[in-house]
């Protein structure tokens, strides 16, 4: 039995127990999707349905993205009168748990209505990487083997083993918090975080190039953007009912693919994520065009960490960096005549 399988069994037992004892109204987790290398979020409300829950290396979604919606009163005033916030158990990996912490800090979800079912994550497979590795063959099924590698069955019936390191999502390859820091219970044994500097490599690489090359690279990256807003919708921290970038009075950016508009969309969104993004990679996963949406926010987060000593999602009572200030904050960027 693989480690994932053990966790899955315990997860189902836990859900059945919580729902049976009416400890929670809803158990939010993952279930098998219709295509390989994927799972889909499942909202379990009955103990008999607990067997739908799955845990495997394809449990990619950041379920924290679904939480703010669950705690909003219905728009209909009559329904709102009889509504009370549910108690929700949610399966969280390390990054997801940090997103939940950030949402609690920003008063989007109440801590006392959440049961955080933490899972010690070993990294999640990037669907696109896995499918590309199979080349022209399509996978008909995929799972994890006892070594933690991914075994896929392809169309002609053969089995292909994909080494885990080669198909893990980029965010997972840089992950420093695989084990949820905040949780009500923990399934699985904590794994090793990636080396502390793993997340610095790509920005350092990018920054080492001359100014105009960086601009060219940035342009090239955003030229693929079709302004579908998937990155924003998938992000748990983008919960604003009326996004600045959709506003029409005033209209900040056009809705089309003019490179200037696309650049500003990504710059503003990244800036809004500074000190809030937990680098779960949901944006990258959601992007249909395969853009490395984390390019900007990776750098911003590292800077927030270096300048203000803050990492998002580590402590519920920490003050977010852009809501705080100190008299002696660094200011060497100032212009002096």
């Amino acid at each position, binding site marked *: 039995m693989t480690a994932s399988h053990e966790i899955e069994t315990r997860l189902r037992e836990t859900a059945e127990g919580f729902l049976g004892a009416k400890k929670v109204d809803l158990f939010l987790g993952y279930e098998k999707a*219709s*295509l390989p290398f994927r799972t*889909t*979020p499942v909202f379990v409300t009955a103990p008999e349905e607990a067997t739908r829950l799955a845990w495997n290396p394809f449990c990619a979604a950041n379920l924290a993205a679904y939480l703010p919606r669950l705690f909003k009163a219905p*728009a209909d005033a009559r329904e709102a009168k009889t509504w009370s916030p549910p108690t929700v158990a949610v399966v969280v990996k390390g990054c997801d748990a940090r997103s939940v912490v950030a949402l609690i800090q920003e008063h989007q979800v109440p801590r006392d209505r959440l049961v955080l079912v933490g899972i010690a994550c070993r990294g999640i497979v990037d669907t696109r990487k896995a499918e590309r590795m199979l080349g022209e063959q399509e996978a008909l099924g995929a799972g994890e083997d006892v070594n933690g590698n991914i075994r896929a069955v392809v169309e002609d019936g053969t089995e292909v083993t994909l080494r885990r390191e080669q198909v893990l999502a980029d965010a997972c390859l840089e992950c420093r918090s695989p084990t949820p820091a905040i949780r009500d219970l923990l399934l699985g044994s904590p794994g090793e975080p990636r080396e502390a500097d793993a997340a610095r490599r790509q920005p350092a690489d990018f920054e080492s190039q001359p100014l105009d090359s960086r601009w060219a690279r940035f342009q090239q990256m955003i030229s693929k953007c079709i302004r579908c807003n*998937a990155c924003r*919708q998938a992000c748990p921290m983008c919960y604003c009912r009326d996004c600045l970038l959709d506003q029409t009075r005033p209209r900040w950016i056009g809705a*089309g693919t003019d490179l200037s508009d696309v650049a500003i969309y990504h710059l503003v969104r990244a800036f809004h994520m500074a000190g809030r993004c937990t680098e779960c990679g949901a944006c990258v996963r959601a992007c249909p065009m395969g853009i490395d949406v984390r390019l900007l926010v990776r750098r911003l987060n590292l800077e927030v960490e270096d300048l203000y000593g803050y990492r998002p999602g580590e402590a519920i009572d920490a003050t977010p960096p852009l809501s705080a200030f100190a008299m002696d904050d660094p200011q060497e960027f100032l212009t002096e005549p």
Partner: protein
Amino acid sequence: MTEKRIPVTDLDGLLARFQEKGAVYAPANDEAGDVALAPLARSAPVVLEYRNFRLSPKAFVLPQNQTLLCFKDGRAEEPGLPAGQTVLFGVRPCDARAMLALDKVFLDGDLHDPYYAGLRARTTVIALACTRPMSSCFCTSVGGGPGDGAGADVLAVPMDADLLLMPQTPRGEALLSSVADLLHDAGPSAVKEAQERIHAAEEQVAPVKVEDCAPRLRAAYNSPLWEAVSRRCLGCGTCSFLCPTCHCFDITDEVRGRHGRRVRTWDCCAYPLFTLHASGHNPRPTPKERWRQRIMHKFRYAVENFDRLFCVGCGRCIRHCPAGMDLRTVLKEVGA
């Protein structure tokens, strides 16, 4: 219409000949290693081994952003269309068929969209039949098939060393006549072989039950199941933007001082803002209403209004949904 054939090795020459008269787009590898329709260039060799492109070719007739008119100091003028014809080679039959759905919306009916019509009139579609459908494909269940030529001007069927070229429209016939010197006649045995290959591909497409989906969906409008099936939807818009038949758009004015332009951009019914009224009321306030509308539009309203399904079974929405949603599962669960 006579079928023609061309050795695969002569394909580059054929496309180069088309390029003399206008732009040609053909499948090529992009930097990520995926295959996409790219401008024909020596640096981008044509690739024939692929399943389907990520982006549908609808962008060629309904661009993501399209300037409808420019205005300055009170005067307006419409920008001219790019000159010359565009030939799209390698479009899959599902995507070609989708163009017919778009034609229903933009060309037939009360309002004729000149912006769409202009681009459609100068686009020639050479479809490439599929020999290896994916597990997410279901074209055969929605009226199409891996060798269906509807919507294309020419249907190309890959054989071992040749491409069989079957004209589907007078424009396709004219296109092939213009390069007759490069083509050979295809005998009845070649045509038969092509049909067999197509039939073999059809057998591989897993069926989805959609008969009578329109009346069933009508009956299921108030089903409590809509809530359950739509809970995972993030409203990200990936499905609509990649879908070859989705066509909803927004029109905005971009103004700078005394001049500006009116632009049409893709929009998506899954966005909360899509139906937001100026009063603040939203008739589709939650993912439940929006998902229901999506399914209804494609599988019921389109049938009731246009007598055709607005889904061609390309499977992009299934492959790319970040929440792993599957249209086929939703249809089954709501009893369509």
